[in-house]
């Protein structure tokens, strides 16, 4: 077992152990914090596929996070008020079922990524950053000015959505659901990295000319990566909204995009468990420092600076050393 695997296993054990311990000692708030970590790490796993594997610096992933959130909000609000989404040409009702909501969140955010990717991937560098940012902001302002679903105030859901066979109101059970989603995404990400697609995408980040010279299209590779990336972040958005029982335009804000990127950079760009480490540290700092000073973001900024300047591989890089190419 190489060092990175050991670090990964330790991170996973920690993320599973802390809430279990909190459950045993009856500390529901800590369970909720761990749930936040799992969900935000999931959002980061999504971004890491675009950023770490594809080299696509998207500053608009809040778009997908928000779409996932609103997918949950819209479906659940119609279900709780017993009003259908539409009656013609066919009847479409809301739902309180998580699996259905997830599916809609995945599809809707993938569709958005399809459109945003098709337009933004024709540019690169700073233009790509700006276009993705612009799309995120468009959705942000759209959500504010759309009164049907709460506008600026957002949407509240009275009861957490259900999952067959589980009591989602029990914090530890909801944590288990989120953790399972994260684990599934990590598993998928690990397979993707090893796959022929992952090999080509990874090469396209390092030397696009090489990839074109062997007859593969870099655009197509990046496009598919961007759609997968957006869909995973969208799923995280649906879970996040369910955790808070609330969605608001804030999920679309550029600060949200920035935060997701911070998880990835703090934890280690392109490292499988980077987003897990990053989100865990972020939430811990927010909880510990946030209690001491309202200006904890200053310290976060300082930390981020240190990572960017001295530890490019982030936390995982610091603990596990350089990335080892798989063989």
């Amino acid at each position, binding site marked *: 077992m190489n060092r990175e695997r050991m670090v990964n296993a330790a991170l996973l054990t920690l993320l599973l152990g802390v809430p279990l311990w909190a459950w045993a000692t009856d500390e529901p708030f800590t369970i909720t914090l761990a749930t936040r970590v799992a969900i935000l790490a999931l959002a980061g796993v999504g971004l890491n596929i675009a950023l770490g594997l594809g080299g696509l610096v998207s500053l608009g992933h809040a778009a997908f996070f928000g779409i996932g959130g609103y997918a949950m909000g819209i479906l659940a609000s119609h279900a709780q008020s017993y009003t259908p989404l539409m009656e013609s040409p066919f009847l479409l009702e809301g739902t309180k079922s998580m699996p259905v909501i997830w599916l809609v969140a995945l599809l809707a955010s993938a569709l958005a990524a399809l459109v945003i990717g098709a337009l933004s991937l024709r540019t690169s560098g700073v233009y790509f950053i700006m276009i993705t940012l612009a799309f995120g902001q468009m959705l942000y302002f759209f959500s504010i000015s759309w009164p049907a679903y709460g506008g600026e105030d957002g949407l509240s859901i009275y009861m957490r959505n259900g999952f067959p066979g589980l009591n989602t109101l029990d914090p530890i059970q909801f944590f288990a659901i989120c953790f399972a989603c994260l684990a599934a995404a990590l598993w998928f990400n690990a*397979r*993707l990295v*090893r*796959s*022929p*697609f*992952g*090999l*080509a995408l*990874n*090469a396209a980040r*390092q*030397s696009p*000319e*090489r*990839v*074109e*010279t*062997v*007859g*593969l*299209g870099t655009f*197509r*590779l990046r496009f*598919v990566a961007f759609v997968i990336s957006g869909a995973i972040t969208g799923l995280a958005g649906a879970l996040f909204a369910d955790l808070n029982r609330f969605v608001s335009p804030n999920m679309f804000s550029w600060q949200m995009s920035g935060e997701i990127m911070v998880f990835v950079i703090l934890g280690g760009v392109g490292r499988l468990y980077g987003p897990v480490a990053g989100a865990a540290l972020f939430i811990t700092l927010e909880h510990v420092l946030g209690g001491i000073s309202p200006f904890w973001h200053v310290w976060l900024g300082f930390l981020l600076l240190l990572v960017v300047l001295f530890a490019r591989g982030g936390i995982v890089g610091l603990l596990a050393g350089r*990335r080892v*190419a*798989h*063989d």
Partner: protein
Amino acid sequence: MTDPVLATKGLTKSFGAVRACHDVSLDLRPGEIHAVIGPNGAGKSTLIAQICGGLKPDAGRVSFAGRDVTHLPTRARARLGLARTFQISALAMEDTVLQNATLGALGAKGARAGLPGLLGDALAPGDLRDTAMAALERVGLAEHAATVTSALSHGQRRQLEVAVALTLRPRAFIMDEPMAGMGTEGSQRMTAFLDGLRDEAPILLVEHDMDAVFALADRLSVLVYGRIIATGSVDEIRANADVRKAYLGEDA
């Protein structure tokens, strides 16, 4: 006479005031090694970039495998069977040697499949790995398969460039200084290897190593300031007064 596999007609390319390529017409016939020589900055790499699709010519045409490919992107030309090696290595430096070779094998296969598979292991035993390993073996890099590419010497990177080209099983090779940085022994081994390779597919060879060029070339074109000043057999070029003055004379 058989039709050429590759031909350029009147290729012209300027960078601002620099005319890097001026009315260049040449061809590559089956079974031959056609060497292009010329001093630094003569426009050899610029010519190759236009042939392979990285640069758009200001004027002129490129035809390959019986088609006009002037407006095709690089990847489409590659799929038609054009394999290029770069003067400045264009490899995935963080990846292993085997991963780079596998990328080539993937590209060759992708001609049919479109998008490489999302699941499955790229390096698992199978077609891809066999193709990649066979190519590495041929250039003598098999024992370095698990080495990270950035750890290779410059000469070894050249060998890897050639190996990736081999995985494509192309109809023509376009090689930009495949022997640069190799040392005498490495150069000689590469020379012997290319000598046999011409039977698989013709080679358009840009090279500064004159021993290699004179040993290998069936035909030579001399490029000076973006123009071809002479094309002919090794003996014809050696005897050519213009060439002696403009290029070989510098050494003599």
